[in-house]
């Protein structure tokens, strides 16, 4: 049984129909990449999973349980972590406080591996910035804080929406290595991205989303070996 599955999902933003009969599966321990152009439906897919934009029809199945229509905080407490595209750190809270509000307080004490110390090991720069207000961090530091903050909830599946967007090349490379370490730790991830180079080593499988539909799915190796696919769906 897949850890996470979307089954025939149809999602609307108000009156506009965004996702059409979208299905995908995520197995425990794998990194699944959602690729597609701007406006293809990647963000909506991620928001559908976490419950911020619940699907109109279709199911979001986490460990065999349909969580479609659950409030986001319940979905989070069942084990899904969400790293939003626009970072959305709390600018008026310090780095330490940003982490603290996201700390896992639910579940009968079965806290996972992630503590403030552990996330500081992964992102050492945040330790130096611990007493600084979130709003004073650079873009790259904010991106790291967003990921660190979500890890504090000890998710089983981490959803990342365009983590490399708007970052300097050097920062993107650092982030890629950090996500690589997360993958090595066994964390399951869903990575929505436009930047194929960023995910080519991280990802195990690829879904290409276009106009709210899955147009292609295969292993990362097969996808990389087929430049035609990339040209058809991703080239600008």
């Amino acid at each position, binding site marked *: 049984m897949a850890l996470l599955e979307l089954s025939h999902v149809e999602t609307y933003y108000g009156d506009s129909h965004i996702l059409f009969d979208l299905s995908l599966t995520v197995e425990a321990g794998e990194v699944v990449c959602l690729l597609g152009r701007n406006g293809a439906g990647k963000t909506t897919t991620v928001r559908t999973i976490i419950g911020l934009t619940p699907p109109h029809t279709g199911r979001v199945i986490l460990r065999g349980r349909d969580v479609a229509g659950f409030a*986001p*905080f319940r979905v*989070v407490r069942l084990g899904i972590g969400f790293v939003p595209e626009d970072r959305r750190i709390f600018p008026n809270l310090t780095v330490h406080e940003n982490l*603290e*509000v996201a700390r896992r307080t*639910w579940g009968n004490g079965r806290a996972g591996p992630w503590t403030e110390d552990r996330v500081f090991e992964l992102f050492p720069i945040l330790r130096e910035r611990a007493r600084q207000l979130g709003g004073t961090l650079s873009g790259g530091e904010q991106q790291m804080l967003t990921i660190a903050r979500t890890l504090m909830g000890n998710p089983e599946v981490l959803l990342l929406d365009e983590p490399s967007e708007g970052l300097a090349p050097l920062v993107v490379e650092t982030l890629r290595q950090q996500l690589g370490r997360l993958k090595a730790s066994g964390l399951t991830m869903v990575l929505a991205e436009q930047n194929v180079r960023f995910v080519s080593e991280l990802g195990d499988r690829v879904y290409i989303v276009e106009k709210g539909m899955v147009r292609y799915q295969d292993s990362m190796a097969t996808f990389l070996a087929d430049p035609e696919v990339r040209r058809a769906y991703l080239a600008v």
Partner: protein
Amino acid sequence: MSGLSVGMFLFLVSVGMSLIFGVTRIVNLAHGSFYMVGAYLMVTLVEVLPDRPWAFWVALLLAPLGVAMLGGVIEIGLLRLIYRRDPLMQLILTFGLILVIGTLVLLAWGPDNKSVPRPAALAGSVRVFGQPFPSYYVLVLGLAPLVALALWLVFYRTRWGMLIRAATVDREMLGALGVNVAALYTQVFVFGSALAGLGGALAAPTVAVALGMDGDVLTTAFVVVVIGGLGSFAGSFISALLVGLLQSFGILVFPAVSIVLLFAIMAVVLIVRPWGLLGRPEQ
């Protein structure tokens, strides 16, 4: 000095109002009614409790608790239904609450003004700079910095305070991090109601407890919150003291225009800093 005391009552009411607005985005017009209920509960509690020195202090504790319960019932029973609705609907609902609570208070306590005796230990007066000054006001003034400090500690040194400050900026994100924001709304509303109740209970021995005190305090607290900046804790404190002093001195110096003066200052603040003295501009 009495101006500072009035400022203290105003601070308690307006910081609760500002807190509720900051987190839930509801402008709670019934906040003045909570203050009034706090004062009326004080009347009854002081009557009912045995005539002992501790009775006053127990009443001072129980009255805000009663108002907190009222706030909880209102939040869970009514406000939850309208968070996602038009702000106008929210104003209409909380305005309706003013009328409902006012009527219920009239039914329960009758139309006559009530008064609360000051506790025996604080019934006299002390001399401050050669002027007689009611001892009770000394208590109020002593309590003010303590309450402000306690609130500061809650907001800046507890996880609950962090959640509140985070919620004022981005509620949706907070929910997406596993925080039960609906429960936080209730807690904040109950806490804000208790602060208004405490303000009313503390003020009861210094004023005539009467129907209509809800409207008076609401108007002034509203000015305080707007001047200080909606959602700003320090802003409410400074602006409450300012407004309290202004009201007392205004009535002495130029009685005819003291109310106008209040609104004139609010207008100036709104023109120069629309987000208030210590508030943050909306992004």
